[in-house]
Structures are given as C-alpha cells and as structure tokens.
C-alpha cells in the first residue's frame, strides 16, 4: 500500500516559486491500477517522481507499506527503487545496448549472478512478447516494442509497484491499446500495483480501477473509475472526460424544457431509449448533447434532452426515464444550480 500524506512540492524559480503539488493525500491499495490524470502542468509527473523520491517532497511523506520513503538512506532508497520501478513516455532504453542487455541492467546494478540475470531477462522478454528481439538494438524496434522492452526491464527486479509516466503518450492508439493490455495482464498475473500517469481519459478508462484528477497541484476528485465517470463533480474532470463537451461553449435558447439523463452504470446500454420513449409516451425529445461511455458492459455519462410540449409532458418523460434502473433524471435548472455549488 502506498500512502501519500500531505504531500507538497515547491520549486524555486527566478520569479519566486511554483507550488507544483499542494497537500496531496492519496491511498493506493495493493493490486490497484491507479490512474492519476491531469492536463499538462497539473503536477502529475512531479507527483509520480515524489513516490520514488526522484523528486524530494518539500513537505509531507510517502509511505510504502508504512515505511517513510523520505527517511531511507541512499542505500536503502536504491534497494527500494528495485521494488518500485518505472517506465516512461520516451522509453529511455540504452541505445548502445541490445534489448537483452537493457533488460539485464537493473540486475547488473544490484550485483547479481550474470547467468541468472540473463535467464530472468529472457523470461521477461518472453512475457512482453519479444523473445526474438534479445539481440536487437532499440533503434531497430518500433515505439511499442521499445516500450515492451522497457516494461520487461522494469519487471526484471520483481517489483511490487510499477509507475507508468505517460507510458503510452508517444504511441499510436492501436499500440497504446496493446501496451495497456500488457499492463493489465501484468497487474493481474503478477499482482503488481500499477500507478498510471496520463493526460488521456481513454487510458484511465481502459485500464484503471481508481482515478485521481489533478489540477494545479491539487487532487480535485478521486474515486473508482466507474463513480468518477458516472458523476464527475469537478469542472476539470468534466473537461477531461469530454474535452469537446458541447456544453462548454454552447448557448441554449431561453425557455424550453431540458433534462439531463444520467447513466450510472445502466446495463441497458443497447436499448434505443429515446426511440422507445417516443413510441411509448409519444414524446419526441431531441438530443442537445451527449457524453456516454461504456465501462465494461455498463453505460456511464449523460444525454441532454430537449422535451417539447407542456410541463406535463416533461413530467411524463421524467417519470418514464426514471423507471429504468441506474438512470437518474435531472431537470436542467436543477443541474445548473448544482453546478454553481461545485
């Protein structure tokens, strides 16, 4: 278990300073795939570097199974870094060494037996699907393959935690998907806790079970991915979930009746809901905006509907939609009031 307690990081710059992290409190349980998401400059890279003390926190502490990372001696920290390993956006392989030598490097640093190290490294190249690339140099590999080698290298010391710093940001969507699958496999097969730093909500959606949203050095929202997706409270979260949210700059006509249909894990994601409402109630709703996603077999998100007709029609629409499990309906005015509070 990793606990971040009141973690703050201040950088001194020529024009005063920057508070990159402000009083961060997070708990990452063993076996989690924990997403930390934020826009560039939100402080997520600093946060992940505080976990393995590549950056020293200005205040607060990082507890790894109860041990304060900041109080470790240089030697203890080096040993700990073999248990909390890291992969990066730029893969960062040694370009002058073969893939096998790259994967063996962490074991060589800890001074193990050479033959055992080579055996272990070959096993891991096998695990990441590149057994035939042992003698290839990184420059001969694609980005996705290089990241696989980096993953093998990160796993060779049998870590408890794998930190992924924008590990898929330099990859195309297809390769991203394959790498995320590998990360999930590793989490499930080897029981390694994974912390995923990203700016892409799709990455969190695909692999994480929990997520924290970071904005200007503060955690603005955290929870299970399902919860956060279903009901994003912070504006930053909504922007990340739907960066091209039509409501961000949409201007709706005055008057009219609008409702927000919120899917909170509704299983009936393939039901033609709006069409059925038209048939069953005779209400011809038009869709003003929508943002729904499937997480597993469940639907999360919302549809914004314009309901024509009288207040009675509105009432009937709300009543009809509310009967479906895991769907809640909010009248738009009510929603606006809620937004002011958030």
């Amino acid at each position, binding site marked *: 278990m990793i606990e971040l307690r009141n973690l703050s990081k201040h950088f001194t710059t020529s024009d005063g300073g920057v508070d990159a992290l402000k009083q961060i409190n997070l708990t990452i349980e063993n076996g989690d795939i924990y997403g930390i998401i934020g826009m560039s400059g939100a402080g997520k890279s600093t946060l992940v570097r505080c976990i393995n003390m590549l950056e020293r926190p200005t205040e607060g502490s990082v507890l790894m199974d109860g041990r304060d990372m900041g109080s470790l001696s240089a030697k203890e920290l080096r040993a700990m870094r073999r248990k909390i390993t890291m992969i990066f956006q730029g893969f960062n392989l040694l370009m002058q060494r073969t893939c096998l030598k790259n994967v063996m*490097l962490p074991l060589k640093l800890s001074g193990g037996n050479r033959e055992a190290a080579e055996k272990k490294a070959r096993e891991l190249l096998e695990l990441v699907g590149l057994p035939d690339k042992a003698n290839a140099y990184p*420059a001969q590999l694609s980005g996705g393959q290089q990241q696989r080698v980096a993953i093998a290298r990160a796993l060779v010391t049998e870590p408890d935690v794998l930190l992924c710093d924008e590990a898929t940001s330099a990859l195309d969507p297809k390769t991203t998907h394959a790498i995320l699958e590998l990360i999930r496999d590793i989490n499930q097969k080897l029981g390694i806790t994974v912390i995923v730093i990203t700016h892409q909500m799709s990455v969190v959606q695909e692999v994480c079970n929990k997520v924290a949203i970071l904005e200007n050095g503060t955690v603005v929202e955290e929870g299970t991915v399902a919860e956060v997706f279903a009901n994003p409270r912070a504006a930053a979260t909504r922007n990340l979930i739907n960066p091209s949210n039509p409501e961000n700059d949409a201007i709706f006509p005055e008057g009219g009746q609008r409702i927000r249909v919120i899917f909170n894990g509704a299983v009936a994601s393939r039901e033609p809901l709006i069409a059925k409402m038209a048939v069953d109630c005779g209400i011809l709703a038009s869709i003003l905006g929508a943002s729904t996603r499937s997480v597993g077999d469940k639907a999360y998100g919302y549809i914004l509907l314009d309901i024509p007709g009288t207040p009675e029609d509105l009432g009937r629409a709300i009543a009809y939609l509310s009967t479906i499990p895991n769907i809640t309906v909010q009248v738009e005015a009510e929603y606006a009031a809620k937004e002011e509070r958030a």
Partner: protein
Amino acid sequence: MNFANAFTPERLQEAWQCLLTEFPFAVWETVYSTLLATLFAVIIGLPLGVLLVTGEQKGIRPLPRPFMSFLNVMINLLRSVPFIILMVMIIPLTRVIVGTSVGTVAAIVPLTVAAFPFIARLVESSLREINPNIIETALSMGASPLQIVTHVMLPESVPSLVTNITLAITTIMGYTAMSGAVGGGGLGKLALAYGYQRYRFAVLYLAVIVLVVITQIIQSFGTWLAAKLDKRLKNQ
C-alpha cells in the same frame, strides 16, 4: 633564402633520400609521442570530464562549488596558454618526470599537460549529449552515481567519445610538430631543421604532406570506428 633554388633536381633528390632515410623514424616518433600523450591525457582528462558533468550542482553527485570552480578555472587556464609557451613554462616539471627537457620522450610531458584539459572538455561535451531522461531512468532503477557513470553515461557516449578523441589525436599531432621547435622529435623537428634552418623547402613540404596523410588516416579511421560502434544507426 632563395626559394627558387629550393626545388632544383638536386634538392628534390636530396629530399627523396631524406624521405627514405630519416622520415620513417620521424614518423614513428610523431606517432608514438602523439598516441602516448593522448593515452596519458585521456587517463587524466576522462575522469575530470566526468567530474565536470556529475559534480555540478544539478549533477548526479554534486561536489562543493569551490572545488568545481577551481576545476573549471584550472582547465580554462591550461587551455588558454599557447602550447609552445606552455612547453617552455613546464620545463622544470618535465625534468622532474623524465630527467631531461629535450627529446621526443620529454615532449610527451608538455603534450599531455596541454591535451588533458582539452580532453576533459571534450569528454564533458560528449557526456552532456546524453539524454537526461536516461540518467533519470538509471536513478529510478536504483543505480548509484558511480554505476550511472560506468553503466550508462560512458557506454552510451562511446561513439561521441571516439569522435572527440579522434579530434584530440589530430590536434595533439599538430602540437608534436610544434614541439620540434623546442627540443621535441618527429616530423615537426625534421621539417623545421631542414626547412627553416637550412632552407631545404622540399623536405619541409614532404614532411607536411606526410603529416597531412597521417592526419587523414587517423581521422578516417576514427570516423569509421565511431559509425561502426554507434548502435543508433539502423539496419546493421
């Protein structure tokens, strides 16, 4: 001096004789004093170059600021003294080390002293070419500062180091020629002794041509080796 008489058939004949009799030993002297001086300069300059990078305040093993300033100033001082002056200046040191200040072996001392600060700067620039993310990655694996130097920084910069040391060798060879003016041996001495003191310009030109050829060979070999060692180039 009469330049017109420098290339008469008799003079050319004399130069040819000289090429056959004296040049082989002069070439040998030039080559071994260059290579030995380079070797000693690398032995001193390589660790200094590493310290210049690792010891700075943002480096992997920061050293006290006064020490780093001293190191930088010392290197700059040595680099700014013209070689021919430096050679005379350190005659006492040369005498302590070799026992004499005259001859090819004695010239290796000032050559080394002139070359090691140069090598230190070249090593520094080679190491600075390394992607800092790779250093960070090594840190994240639990590498100690010394391990980062030996397992990451030096191996990763081998092609660049080879290129830079080739440059150093050709520069040091230029210095050996200069050392001929103040007691050193080799092609430089030959060129000056014949060309400057006895107006045998044909010999001087021949010596220059041979120096150019040696430089070309060294440079081509260095370039080829650096390319061969660089695994970033695809399809090899």
